[in-house]
């Protein structure tokens, strides 16, 4: 029995080791962001002689990246709010099939998720220019909201459908109006769904590049991915600074992974058991 257990432990360790190797591009970038400038291009040795925060200081001291952090956070937060404000009522109506064409709405949402962003970026650019919104947060928020909305409605309609109609009817008997029921009965029950839709929207907006790159022109509205793609460096590429800026751009996704992996594994298991 102990032999089998040792074999299992060795096997598990090997799989974990392989996955750490898989994730090494990320860890290498993290190490690079802490490597002294003079040792960047001297590899091997793999490990630097000392660790330094000089790249982070350089990147945060430069207005472009500091401003881009602010832009990214603001745009992603406002996009999340807009997508949820529009998506929650629509998903509820679609789930309860109360509006005409609730089914077609959901089908349209699925179709919209297959739309290539590159196909609509030039008309949207002309719209943004005509509205005088070039190089503003509003332009990016508008595009991000439109692209995140289908997924939000689709996800939330699934969550609302799980809530029995009887719960609503009970509240109605107690004299709760439509809005009171949505606010005090349905939303708390759908909270996990709303939270995950919100997190996904935030990440989508934080990571998005094409619209943010096309509709912005200066550091007034450039998001972090755009600033990272356009990172200044004419004669010598500042690899350490780029690595530090990359790590800053990775903070929200990494936090989400750390916070949600337990939830996700359970979700995967539950989803699999339901089949």
């Amino acid at each position: 029995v102990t032999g089998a257990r040792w074999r299992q432990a060795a096997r598990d360790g090997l799989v974990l080791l392989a996955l750490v190797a898989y994730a090494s591009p990320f860890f290498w970038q993290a190490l690079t962001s802490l490597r002294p400038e003079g040792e960047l291009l001297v590899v091997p040795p793999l490990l630097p002689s000392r660790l330094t925060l000089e790249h982070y200081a350089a990147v945060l001291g430069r207005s472009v990246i500091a401003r881009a952090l602010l832009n990214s956070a603001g745009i992603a937060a406002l996009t999340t709010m807009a997508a949820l404000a529009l998506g929650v009522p629509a998903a509820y109506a679609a789930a309860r099939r109360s509006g005409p064409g609730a089914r077609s709405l959901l089908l349209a949402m699925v179709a919209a998720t297959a739309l290539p962003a590159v196909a609509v970026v030039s008309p949207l650019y002309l719209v943004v220019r005509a509205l005088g919104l070039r190089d503003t947060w509003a332009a990016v928020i508008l595009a991000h909201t439109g692209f995140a909305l289908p997924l939000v409605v689709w996800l939330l309609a699934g969550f609302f459908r799980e809530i029995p109609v009887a719960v609503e009817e009970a509240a109605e008997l107690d004299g709760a109006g439509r809005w009171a029921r949505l606010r005090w009965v349905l939303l708390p029950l759908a909270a996990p769904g709303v939270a995950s839709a919100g997190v996904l929207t935030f990440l989508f907006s934080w990571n998005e590049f094409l619209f943010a790159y096309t509709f912005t022109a200066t550091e007034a509205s450039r998001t972090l991915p755009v600033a990272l793609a356009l990172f200044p460096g004419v004669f010598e590429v500042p690899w350490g600074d780029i690595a530090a800026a990359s790590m800053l751009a990775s903070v929200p996704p990494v936090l989400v992974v750390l916070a949600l992996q337990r939830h996700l594994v359970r979700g995967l298991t539950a989803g699999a058991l339901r089949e």
Partner: protein
Amino acid sequence: VTARERARRREGTVLMAPALAVLAGLTLYPLCWVLWLSLARRVPVFGIDQFVGLAHYVFLAGDARFWNALWVTAVFTVVSVALEVALGLAVALALRGQQWGQRTAVGLLLLGWTLPAVVTARQFEWLYHPSAGLVNLALGGASINWLGDPAYALLGVIIADVWRTMPFVALLCYARLLGVPPELAEGAAVDGAGALGTFWWITLPLLRGVVLVAALFRTLDALRAFDLMYVLTGGGPANSTETLTVLAYRSSFQMMQLGFGAAVAVVVLLVVLATAAAYTRALPASGSAA
């Protein structure tokens, strides 16, 4: 229809209207506009805006750069999706047998998938550095110019894409595997099937549905991919990584030929729609296995 039912319907309409209006304004309207734009010669900087009919499409049919982009898109999509499905399946099977450290394993996988594409592009640019890159070092001090050599650039982009999206396939397949009762495999073992036989006759047929779905999503995403190659190589060197999306974008926003770029974008749209239709035909057949 009772008054109550009518009120319910009116309410549903009110609740759905804002989302529908936004969707119509931000996706349907631009979609119609891009079709119209593709029939025009439009160069804003010179104030040119004239209707040219199908001229852009006729030009594309004989344009070597367009055919090259179509070929690059096809190679990128087929090779990266094939690698992602094969590796994702292998990782899912490895995770299935995992008894401890499962959460860490899933966390490591999720990392690649949740990072912004631009960050992945910058990471791989550094890994591919000709003299200080980890990749050449791992190859025993090779001096391959990954992103500067037309023979290697597309491979370099494909590897970065596989790194980024393999976790999606792995986690989908893993979730499906968790739903397979272990008794199935044990029964097969009792019947004398070896590990390979169990995999081939029991596990693989059960995974057929989920693998098709994963391949569909990945194929559509690969056809639409833009960020990674645009940041990593910008379509170069010598257009060796210029996909249809990059060609469409460069035409619209670097050469400022909005009409011509729109025509290429419409081709991307048609390719995506045709692929989705082909997969949906294949899917119902395997519905029972999913």
